[in-house]
């Protein structure tokens, strides 16, 4: 099916070339970071995790969100999601690969990466994160590819795919729970030390992921013959609505615990994020953008009129995605270190090399997603066409797959 990526319009190829260029720049920037060390980033002794790990956290959420489509379809027979499961799984693949890349570029000694396998440490959440993320990646590649391949051939998927799908559902929840455990088990970081962490992560993921999926569906509708269907998009929008509302509720819970208890360690980071602390607050404008976008999105989503209209739904989904990127991809990780263990504020500002590497990895993810979606959409277009013509001819659909006259091989 890979050969389907080689046929495309000039827009498709321009996009591919743009992504390759961004990947090249990111790679060159990473070579610079490899030779100089992580001093080229904005990381410091006090804020030792920043943009890279923030992206990891956000993208694990996006990856986990495939379950919002897979669970209803496979466990509760919500048939309208039938077309979307493969999209969700491929999105998860691209997202998890990005997660792995962000961990890789963050390491001080990437050449020793295999130590985490050679010397397993079951007490470390990072170890388990590696295990579940790689397991989830493998599962989604196997499931997505095989289900799509079966669809292309007009047969039901092989029997062994089904148990894998069932496993992928709790595994999706677990990848984000384990990622949350990275943070919520550390005694010294008061902003992170909350039982709410894993729940908040999941809810945030179930808002951001499906929002992106909705935007992808509209995009695919425009550039290809693939149409997920209005009902599927409506159902996804409802999921985003509930998730976003609970997300806002959880922020409210955070604020209540901190400011009603008046415990300084609980208040200081929230103060730093929203109004500044000790005279410093470079994240404040971002947090207000997050707050405004999140509230605006929730209002647009809660109101059925704006949720059902394509234009306002698209705005709401974009707002959800951007605001939750700020929340998880930027604020959460950095703010955990502020104030530092000595009660002082040392701020973090990502540098240009850091940003270029980050953009480069996002480009890799977009590249993988583009290729996978191209394959999925091409297959679905063909099978639906042949199903259409079969229905018209009132005969059984012939298993024909032809690509420009060449017979499609393995």
């Amino acid at each position, binding site marked *: 099916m890979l050969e389907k990526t080689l046929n495309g319009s000039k827009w498709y190829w321009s996009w591919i070339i743009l992504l390759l260029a961004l990947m090249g720049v990111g790679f060159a920037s990473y070579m610079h970071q490899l030779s100089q060390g992580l001093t080229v980033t904005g990381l410091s002794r006090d804020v030792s995790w920043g943009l890279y790990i923030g992206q990891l956290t956000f993208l694990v959420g996006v990856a986990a969100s495939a379950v919002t489509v897979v669970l209803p379809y496979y466990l509760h027979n919500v048939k309208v999601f039938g077309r979307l499961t493969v999209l969700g799984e491929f999105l998860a693949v691209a997202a998890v690969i990005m997660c792995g890349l962000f961990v890789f570029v963050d390491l001080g000694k990437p050449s020793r990466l295999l*130590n985490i396998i050679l010397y397993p440490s079951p007490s470390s959440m990072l170890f388990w994160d590696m295990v579940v993320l790689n397991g989830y990646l493998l599962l989604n590649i196997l499931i997505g590819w095989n289900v799509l391949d079966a669809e292309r051939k007009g047969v039901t998927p092989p029997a062994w795919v089904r148990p894998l799908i069932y496993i992928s559902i709790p595994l999706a929840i677990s990848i984000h729970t384990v990622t949350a455990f990275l943070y919520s088990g550390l005694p010294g970081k008061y902003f992170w030390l909350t039982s709410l962490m894993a729940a908040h992560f999941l809810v945030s993921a179930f808002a951001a992921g499906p929002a992106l999926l909705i935007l992808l569906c509209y995009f695919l509708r425009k550039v290809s013959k693939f149409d997920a269907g209005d009902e599927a998009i409506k159902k996804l929008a409802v999921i985003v609505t509930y998730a976003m509302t609970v997300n806002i509720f959880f922020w409210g819970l955070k604020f209540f615990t901190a400011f009603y208890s008046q415990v300084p360690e609980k208040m200081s980071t929230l103060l730093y994020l929203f109004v500044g602390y000790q005279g410093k607050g470079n994240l404040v404008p971002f947090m207000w953008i997050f707050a405004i976008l999140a509230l605006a999105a929730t209002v647009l989503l809660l109101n059925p009129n704006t949720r059902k209209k394509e234009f306002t739904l698209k705005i709401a989904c974009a707002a959800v995605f951007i605001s939750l990127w700020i929340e998880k991809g930027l604020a959460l990780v950095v703010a955990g270190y502020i104030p530092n263990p000595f009660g002082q504020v040392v701020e973090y500002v990502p540098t240009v090399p850091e940003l270029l590497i980050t953009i480069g990895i996002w480009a890799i993810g977009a590249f993988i997603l583009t290729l996978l979606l191209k394959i999925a959409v091409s297959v679905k277009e063909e099978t639906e066409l042949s199903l259409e013509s079969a229905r018209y001819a009132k005969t059984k659909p012939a298993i024909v797959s032809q690509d420009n006259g060449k017979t499609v091989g393995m």
Partner: protein
Amino acid sequence: MKMHRRSFLRIGGVCALGLGFLPAVKVLAGSGQSRVADDPNALTGNRWAMVVDMKKCWEAGKRDCADCIAACHQTHNVPDIGNIKDEIKWIWQEPFDNTFPDLKHEYMAEGIKRRSFIVMCNHCDNAPCTRVCPTGATFKRRDGIVVMDYHRCIGCRYCMAGCPYGARSFNFRDPRPFIAEINKKYPTREKGVVEKCSFCEDRLAFGQLPACVEACEEKALIFGDLADPNSEVRKILRSGYSIRRKPDLGTEPKIYYLV
């Protein structure tokens, strides 16, 4: 033809995967026996700890004294990077409000407020850093020292996130240019690994006290074994009031302060 090719590739893939296991198995199997002995002079203990007598440090010590810091950083080739972003420190001074943020208040005695405390890795009995390390590069040894294995560290900095005391530093860049005078008897570290106070385990092995303890002219740093009821540290702890940093976190730090 198709079926044969597919099965061939599948079997080939599985074989390649199987062969890939061989180096991993070799590493895990380990080498033959090693003949190891212990230096009879070595200082041995089960729960190494340190008492920092701040009164001795302040009242009897000379002004702006940093003998312990200089001795440590000199002995262990700790670089002086020169900016707070990339700085590396194993032992340093912090004011009271920063050392004990849960104890500070507005009307604290001036004598305490304006003085600096000596801080370093606490070698906690229940260290979060060793719990979170994904490779076991930092671990707790039998004698109670939290050790860094610089050969195994992948530089993920999870231990730095886990430490509630900010005791760990990361080599953001190559440290060598920033070491004024290299101590030829001790290695440096390289860019990409985390480092911290080692309780001078390399000196203990040859019967020497930690460099900071030895360097302090006022004997304000007292090192000893908590498991030995007759050790100096136990005697001092019995004799007066002592505090530790952030005890409520359950880390069981082993640096005790006499204020």
